[in-house]
């Protein structure tokens, strides 16, 4: 069991700056995020898109903003738990016991939800029957490519993941690549490679097709694909892989007894606390009268939630407001020597 003063759910800009604010006032914290990297929507959805409304930063990309926030956290030791989704939050005496899908547990008086619009999950095939085979022969990510050795694999998608895996798996498997249009959005070099492998008969390319149905009793046997002109083809296959990017799902947060309206969590504007004592929501996921979904609002909300955490984490101490420009204590925490 990991004990911490505050657990932050979500490593997007708001979660990162909230961590900074907690450390500045002398609290420790850990951060959990379902993505495999730090940065949240900024890094997953728009790493290259410029942002123009971060105060004092005329222009920066999602990736630059993330890197700057990570740099700002450099003086502090903060433990990140990436690739983990918080599944359970339960009250035990004065603390919240938090459990992730990997079985990591935390005990903390303060849980700060900085989860954006929820956790990123792979988008799935629209065909309902795929659920029957999910994680067995219908996959949305690859953990062990050796299972495909000598098998037939049908890959759906037109981005880098689909193309990279088509190229890689074509070495030792029979590969079908299915995409809804002729154009691919992956890197040009990979697109060229796929076309080259298709010419050589190493990849069977089906463009303008999408999955129509899936067949098999205990095991996946074949997939029917259909094009816009309603022509169908049956592909015998051992595996179906879907690479349609990620989508945000509110997920387990809905089950924690919080007041939720339209995928957002209601909070007060003093502490950004939810209806549960010691659970806060900051950034895009929180709602209150006048809420603006801007990154700068998330920074403000995180700063106030961090101060509220102090009371529950250090019930016998009094929080004292200090400026970073003047406080020796804060400079000490930042590792700055001298005045």
């Amino acid at each position, binding site marked *: 069991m990991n004990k911490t003063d505050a657990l932050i759910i979500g490593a997007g800009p708001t979660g990162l700056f909230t961590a900074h604010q907690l450390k500045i006032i002398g609290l420790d914290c850990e951060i959990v995020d379902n993505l495999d990297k730090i940065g949240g*929507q900024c890094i997953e*959805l*728009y790493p290259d*898109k410029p942002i123009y409304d971060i105060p004092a930063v005329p222009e920066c990309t999602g990736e630059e903003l993330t890197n700057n926030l990570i740099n700002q956290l450099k003086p502090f030791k903060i433990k990140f738990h990436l690739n983990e989704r918080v599944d359970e939050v339960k009250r035990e005496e004065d603390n919240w016991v938090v459990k992730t899908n990997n079985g990591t547990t935390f005990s903390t008086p303060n849980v700060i939800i900085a989860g954006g*619009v929820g956790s990123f999950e792979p*988008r799935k095939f*629209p065909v309902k029957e795929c659920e029957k085979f999910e994680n067995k022969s219908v996959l949305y990510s690859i953990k062990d490519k050796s299972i495909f050795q000598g098998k037939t694999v049908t890959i759906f*998608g*037109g*981005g880098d993941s689909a193309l990279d895996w088509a190229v890689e798996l074509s070495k030792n498997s029979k590969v079908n690549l299915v*995409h*809804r*249009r002729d*154009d691919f*959005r992956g890197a040009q070099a990979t697109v060229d490679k796929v076309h080259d492998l298709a010419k050589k008969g190493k990849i069977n390319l089906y463009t303008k097709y*999408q999955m129509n149905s899936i067949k098999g009793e205990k095991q996946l046997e074949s997939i029917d694909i259909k094009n*816009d002109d309603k022509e169908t083809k049956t592909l015998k296959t051992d595996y179906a892989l879907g690479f*349609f*990017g990620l*989508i*945000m799902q509110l997920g387990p947060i809905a089950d924690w007894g919080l007041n939720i309206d339209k*995928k957002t969590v209601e909070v007060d504007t003093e502490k950004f606390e939810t209806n549960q004592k010691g659970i806060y929501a900051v950034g895009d996921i929180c709602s209150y009268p006048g809420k603006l*979904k801007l990154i700068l609002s998330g920074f403000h909300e995180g700063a106030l939630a961090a101060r509220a955490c102090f009371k529950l984490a250090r019930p016998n101490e009094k929080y004292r407001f200090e400026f970073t420009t003047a406080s020796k204590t804060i400079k000490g925490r930042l590792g700055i020597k001298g005045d």
Partner: protein
Amino acid sequence: MTKITYVTHDNQIHTVEVQNGLTVMEGAVQNDIPGIDADCGGGMACATCHVYVNDEWFDKIPAKEDGEEDMLDMAFEPKKNSRLSCQIIVSDDLDGLKVNIPSKQG
């Protein structure tokens, strides 16, 4: 103000007046029309404001710009007449536009 009709997957018809200059996505969100999630808030980064545009309207609305088709690759059940509603800007020319909302956004 321009009349826009949103038809949900279970055939509920919502006709609303949307201010010119807003997007078809914003028109749906502001009028609480279900089925358009718009997770990224109009940044053409998530494909959760996906709609189908009727044939009679598809060629009348401004064509897709770079990137929209890429995002539609990820949409739920994309078709030939798929668009991202955050990329369709409401104007007088669109008066009477009808869009169908898919059964899911992802």
